[in-house]
Each structure stands twice: as C-alpha cells, then as structure tokens.
C-alpha cells in the first residue's frame, strides 16, 4: 500500500510538474532547453575525463567551465526575462539578452585562452 502510494505520489507530482511547465512561455522553454544542453555537454566531458584521466587538466577545466558558465548565464537570463519576476519588471528583456551575449563572449574568450 505504502509503495503504491509513494509511486502514485511521485507520478502525481511529476504530472503536475509537467502540466505546470506546459504553461511557461516559449522563450523560457527555449532557455531551459539551452541550459539542459549545456549541462549534458558538461556531464559528457566529465565522463570522458573519468575514462581517460585528467592529463591536460586545464583543457578539462576549460571545457567544463565553458558549459557550466554558459548555463549559469542562461539561468540569469531566464530570471531577468521571466515576466512573473517582480524584481526585474522594469528591465527590458532585450537588455537582458544583450548582457547575456556580452557575458558569454567574455567567458568564451577566457575559455579559449585556458584551453591550451
């Protein structure tokens, strides 16, 4: 009985999340997708390092940090763009996007330098 309740609860939770998520605007979904993409790439790189060893460690760090960094920037973009967020009501989303682009470019310059 407990197990089925938990399972049912988990399933119910999952369903509600899904339906709730369906209501988010598309642009936010795009950003979310981008974040998922970045994180997955990072995970693949970590798996690779686990397999072959971390010899050019700087390269590994560079790759992982690029993914993580861009994910973080995307998260901050999502926060700023989300209309439900009262804090950033006055910030035009284009401005947020411009910041996102700029920060990404700076991040990637540093990454390329560190890549070796």
């Amino acid at each position, binding site marked *: 009985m407990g197990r089925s309740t938990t399972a049912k609860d988990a399933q119910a939770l999952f369903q509600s999340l899904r339906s709730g998520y369906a209501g988010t605007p598309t642009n936010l*979904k795009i950003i979310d997708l981008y974040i998922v*993409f970045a994180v997955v790439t990072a995970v693949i790189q970590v798996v690779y390092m686990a397999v*072959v*060893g971390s*010899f050019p460690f700087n390269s590994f760090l560079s790759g992982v940090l690029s993914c993580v960094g861009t994910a973080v920037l995307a998260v901050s973009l999502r926060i700023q763009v989300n209309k439900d967020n009262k804090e950033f009501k006055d910030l035009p989303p*284009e401005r947020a996007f411009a910041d996102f682009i700029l920060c990404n*470019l700076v991040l*990637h*310059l540093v990454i390329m*330098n560190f890549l070796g």
Partner: protein
Amino acid sequence: MARNLEFLVVALLVFASSCESAIFNPVSESHRSAALELFSPADGSFGSLEETYEALKTCEVLGIEKKPDIRISACASVVDTLLSTSTAVKDLFHALRVNGILKCELNDEAFAGIESRLKDSLNNANSLLDFYYSIGGLVLIKDQTSAVDVLLTDADKISRSIKALSQSDGRWRLNSNNPESSNDAAGKALEALAGVISLASSEIDQSLIATLKNDIAKLFDGVARYDDGTCYFDEKLVDARGHQGPLSASASVVRGITAFAEVTTESLNVRVSTVLGSSAPPLTVKLMQTFISGSKDASIIDQIVFDDPEQKKNYATGGRTKVPIHVTGAITIDSAEIAILDSDIGSPETQKKLDLPGENAVALSANHLQKLMLSFRLTTPSGHAFKPHQDFLGLVEKFYYLSGKYDIQLTVGDSVMENSFLQPLGHIELDLPDAPEKAARPPPQPVDPYSRYGPKAEITHIFRAPEKRPPRELSLAFLGLVFLPLFGFLAGLFYLRANLKNLPKSTVPATFAILFHLGIAAVLALYALFWFKLDLFTTLKALGLLGMFLMFVGHKTLSHLASTSAKLKSA
C-alpha cells in the same frame, strides 16, 4: 788579560756546517756594556797595539762610540811604530790594522817605507807567521793608500812556499821545523794565500788554487761538533801563544776561507737572502766558497759572519748554509719547424717555419695516416748544443676518435734554462675515422663522492615520460558524443516551434539584425582562430574592433526590437 782579549775578540764565529742551526742573538745593550767594561783602557791606552786593534774593532762592530782621547794616544803609538825602523813585522802588521780603523795621519812616504820593509821580510820569510804578517801588512797598505805599488812579482814562489807547509789533513804547520799542525795555522795560511793572490801581478797557477780548494775541503773533514749540532774547529796543541781554544781557531779558519773565497770567486749572479730575527748592524754575509760538483749543480757555502765579540760562553750563532745553486742561462732556440709527414715515407706534405719563442698561429690539417713532426735546436749562451731534459708537445695521445680542431702547445724547459716557455703553436685539424662500435667513449669525469663542494656527477637528461594518451578512437567517439546534445537542442527547438517571427521585415532593421548575428559569428570565429594560431594580443586587438562593431549593431537591433514590443504592448 791579553789572552782573554784575544780569545774573545778575534772575530768570533761558530758555524754549523751542514747543520743549519741558526740561533741568532742580535747585538744588545748587554753586549755593549760588557765590551766597554772589558775594554776600558788602562791609563789612556790599551797596552799593546794588538789589544788596541782588538778593542777598536770591537767597538766598531758593536757600534760603540770611541772616545776621542783614545784615538789620539793610539794614533801616536801607531805612527811611532810605523815610522820607527826597528819594529818587528808583527808590530807593523798590528799598527797597520789599527791605522785601518783610526785612519791616522800617515803620508805616502811613510807607506812606501813600510812597504819596502814588508817586502824585504817577505823575501826572507821562512815561517808561516812571517808570511802572514808581511802579506797581511801589504794587503793593508794596498787598502789604505793607492799611491804605493804593492804588487808581488813572485807570487807563485811565495804561494808555493806557503803551500809547502800544508799537510795532508788540511791543516798547516807553522814552520818546517815544527811538525805540529793546527787549524789556526791553516786559517792564517789561507788568509796569507788569499792575500798573495790578490796582490799578484800575474795570474796565479790555477792548479794551485784547485789544490787549495781540496785542502779546504779536507779541513772541513776535521770539523768537530757540539751536542746541539753546532760545529767548530778545535785545537789540540798548545803553541807559543798559549792554548787557542775552539773559538779563535774556528774564527781563524773562517777568516782564511773567506779571504780565499773572495779572491777566487768568479762573479756569479747569486742572490743570497738570509732570514734573521733582526739584522744587527755588525753582520756581513760572505760567500765563502763555491763547490762545483759533477753535475750542473753548484753549491755555495755562505757564511753569516757575526763580528760579535763573544762573552764568556760560546754562542751558537750564525749559520752556515749550504745552498745549492743552479747555474742558469738563457737558452736560445732557433730553426724551429713543424711539419706534417705523409705516413712513413717522411716526405713533408706541409711544412711551416715556427718562430720560437714568438707568437705562432699555425693552422694544420691532418688525418690519421699522417705524422706530425716538430723540430728545433737549442743553443746555450756559450754556443753549445743543449739538450733539454723535458720537452714535449702538449698533444693528447688518445683522441677518442673525435675529429676536430685541436690546439697545439709546445713546452720546453729544463732546470738550468732561464727562459723555459710554454707556447701555443696554433691548431691542427684532425680528421679521424669514425669510432668503431666498441671504441671507448671519453670517460666521464670521476666523481668524488665525499666532496661536498666539488662537481657532482654528470646528469644525462632524461625526458619526462610522456603522459599516457587515450586511444584515438575513444577520443573521437567522445567527440561525436559531445555533439549529440547540440543536436538534441536543435531538435528541441524545433519541437517547441521556435520561430524567427520577431525578425524585422523592413530593410534597415533587418540588415542590422543580420549584421548582429554575423557579428556574433565573427567573434566566435575569432576565438577559434585564436585557439589554432593567434596569440592573445592580436586576438584582443581584433576583438576590440569587432566588439565595437557588434555593440553598435546590437544596440540598433535590440532597441528596435524593444520599441517594437513596447508598441505592441501599448497597442
């Protein structure tokens, strides 16, 4: 009293022949005061002229000021003695000695008179002492005045007569009647002979001198030693003057040898340096004798003479050091040549004249089949051919088959050569065959494991073993794997129906929009180029330019978009 004086005064010297005991006690106030005490004149004069001489000499040597009244009385006595016709030769001798110190007034006539008397007595002399006093007197006259001619025409005869009194053990007899010999007599004889040689008008027979040198050597065979190693000449007999004692005997011998050495020494360029505690004024270093032994080495016996009147005890002062000297000279070297010979035939392939010992820069080349020959000739200053004991080319014998350029140096030296030299001659190119497989490599420098500050062992560099790299296929697989999320992202975008509806339609904004995207693409391309090829500074410069462009374009586009959406909102 007289005996004491003569015991003490007569130049006291003790020598250590080959024992170099040199216990030097310089002249001190105690010596001087003792001398003054001893030599206090009784009623204005010293008694005999001999004592006068001894006193005056002592004072002179010790550096004691002579009292002027003594001088007057002494001079008076001297003049009296010298001018009187009845004085004995012995007194003449002593008077002349005193005159040597005091330099009393005597005119040339007086000297001439004395000289003729001395020569007469010399011709009639038959005992050693007669010879000694006459010749001694003549030598003194020669020193004191130049007006009188004191040359001896029959020097040979005189010297032979003196020599006749010598004995096989090196000592001398006083006269032919008395068979007893003494060291003191030997000293006097040598002094007399030295005087003869110095006064001789013609060359003395060299064989005589050689014989005398042998006699001196024999004399030294009879030298006695004290416990501490100092040597002395002792007297066994008691002659007319009383027992002489070792000091005066030794002194006499040394004086004789010194005088003899002075007249027979050739001038050698010898530098003698003595190490003394303090060089007291009454010190003379005299070259006593040179012995030339069989080889090129010669010995010089130098005598450090302390004219230091001894007190009651024997001083073991003064040292006689035997110094071996090398007679050296400058050797000239000429007709030097260096040649490369073709194997054993000996025909010179290249031949070059060398200028030794000048500057040389010879460049030769040879391979392992040829021989190197270097020849030169050395001559002594007297023109004889000279064979140096060491001369070798400074070439390394084993070259370890290393070809290349070697420097040649020539070293010519010998112990008698003053101008030995080490001279670079130039270089030679050696073309040696390749080392066979088993040839020895040049040995590594031996390492002393205990030296802390010396060179450590040679380290041959070992490169770090390269890190293990993953297999290429694995890397490529993961590369493919990394692109998967990208495709997933694009697929997701498509699924979300992402569109480009917001892209502006009208020309200008559209252009800007396109330029904006192109600008971002350009920056990313720049980064890629930076990773492959460029350095940071170039990249930053380009980035600056692109960034400014991108800013402008981006601003335009995004502001346009913002205004569009604002219009939509308000609408």
